[in-house]
């Protein structure tokens, strides 16, 4: 192969007569074939304008970020944001969270020595900072409070707010139910536009979307003494409670759903609890691991 002519061809300066000479070489004929195929490679777009438009859009958005980098006031603003967020996280770090699992209760001491007993499957959250000036906490689930005298004490729940000064009371806010019982002192309950003031032995309960006041003659809720107490409550509600106290599954077979139950069951022994529920209602039960089946006596 004549290198000089080959380079001329590759560089596009080969004359027609030189081309004829080259074509006598079979290797060059192969080169020509490679050359013709390679020219058919699927190439990217050979148009510059579209890319330029894209670039302009990108540059516009990049320029905007440039402005943010340079603006003095924005620097100040950015610094302020950072300071605020540090402050926020400092405050947030003072926020206290407590949660209980199924079949677990927890006794908590608040900064002012008020006492809270958190029932199972409940969540309580409050901010330690300025506690003595601002006694406010949020609750999901059920808790019993013994509040020492002091500033206004607020319990915020999904359904409403309970406001007290110094007293003992129980708040139950689960799913659709909302029930507040006052045991000592006085308790204010606010639900939407309704405001009820409870004296010892009163309870406020949500019925058909309305907050109503009822009497309850006990000095403390049953669950504190590991008991669940019911007064003329539908069987369904009783079983729900049983289910969450013992963390079990309950299967019912042919049970009259209109059955109502008055009494209390222990939270310490499942079999004893089942006996106390089933005996007066004329039911029977079977326990299999975590599954309890209830059925009508023959």
């Amino acid at each position, binding site marked *: 192969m004549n290198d000089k002519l080959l380079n001329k061809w590759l*560089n596009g300066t080969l004359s027609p007569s030189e081309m004829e000479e080259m074509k006598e070489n079979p290797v060059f004929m192969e080169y020509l074939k490679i050359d013709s*195929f*390679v020219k*058919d*490679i*699927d190439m*990217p777009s050979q148009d510059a304008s579209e*890319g330029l438009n894209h*670039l302009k859009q990108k540059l516009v958005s*990049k320029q905007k970020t440039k402005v943010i980098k340079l603006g003095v006031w924005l620097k100040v603003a950015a610094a302020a944001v950072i300071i605020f967020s540090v402050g926020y996280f400092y405050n947030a770090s003072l926020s206290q969270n407590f949660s209980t699992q199924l079949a677990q209760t927890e006794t908590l001491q608040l900064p002012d020595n008020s006492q809270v007993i958190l029932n199972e499957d409940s969540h309580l959250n409050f901010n330690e900072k300025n506690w003595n000036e601002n006694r406010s906490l949020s609750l999901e689930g059920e808790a019993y409070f013994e509040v020492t005298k002091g500033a206004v004490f607020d319990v915020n729940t999904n359904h409403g707010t309970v406001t007290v000064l110094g007293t003992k009371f129980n708040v139950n806010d689960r799913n659709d139910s909302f029930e507040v019982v006052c045991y000592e002192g006085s308790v204010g309950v606010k639900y939407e536009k309704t405001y009820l003031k409870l004296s010892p032995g009163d309870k406020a309960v949500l019925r058909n979307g309305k907050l109503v006041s009822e009497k309850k003659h006990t000095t403390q809720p049953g669950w504190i003494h590991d008991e669940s107490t019911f007064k003329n409550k539908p069987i369904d509600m009783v079983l729900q409670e049983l289910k969450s106290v013992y963390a079990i599954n309950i299967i019912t077979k042919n049970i009259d759903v209109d059955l109502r139950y008055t009494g209390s069951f222990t939270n310490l022994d499942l079999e004893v609890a089942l006996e106390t529920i089933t005996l007066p209602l004329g039911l029977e039960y079977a326990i299999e691991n975590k599954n309890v089946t209830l059925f009508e006596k023959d």
Partner: protein
Amino acid sequence: MEEEKDICSEVQFDKMYSALVVSLRNYMFFKSGSKDRAYDITQEAFIKLWQNCAKVTPKKAKSYVYTVATNLFLNEVAHEKVVFNYRKETTSPVNNQNPQYLLEEKEYGEKLQRALSKLTEIQRTAFLMSRVEGKKYREIAEILGISEKAAGKRISDALETLRQHIENI
């Protein structure tokens, strides 16, 4: 003078972009074998040029975008297998009645495709700039930062390597 205007003027930048983009995009395509990557890398290189428009003189702009693009390529996509496809209608109308011929052409195309994948990136890029884009030795040498003689050597070596690969496949 027009030449002395810096690239920070939008008109000047647009001119620069239009003059350089196709060639740079092709170059990146020959290197990477991917249209999308070639496009992205090229755009990125011009964004860098815009951001540094005050520091880069118009004369240096070409080598600037090529250098930036090459570095981006090395960082991102080097060492991947490169496969070039052909445009769909590759056969001329005269020959498309002969199935035997069509089959042979198709097989030859596949052989060449594999042979191209086996070339080194250095050989492949120089070769394709010459054969596909029809660039002269001088221009290729300038882009690659080598002598014209070295460019010619790369191209003719690539051609011979391809021929031998096709024969042996």
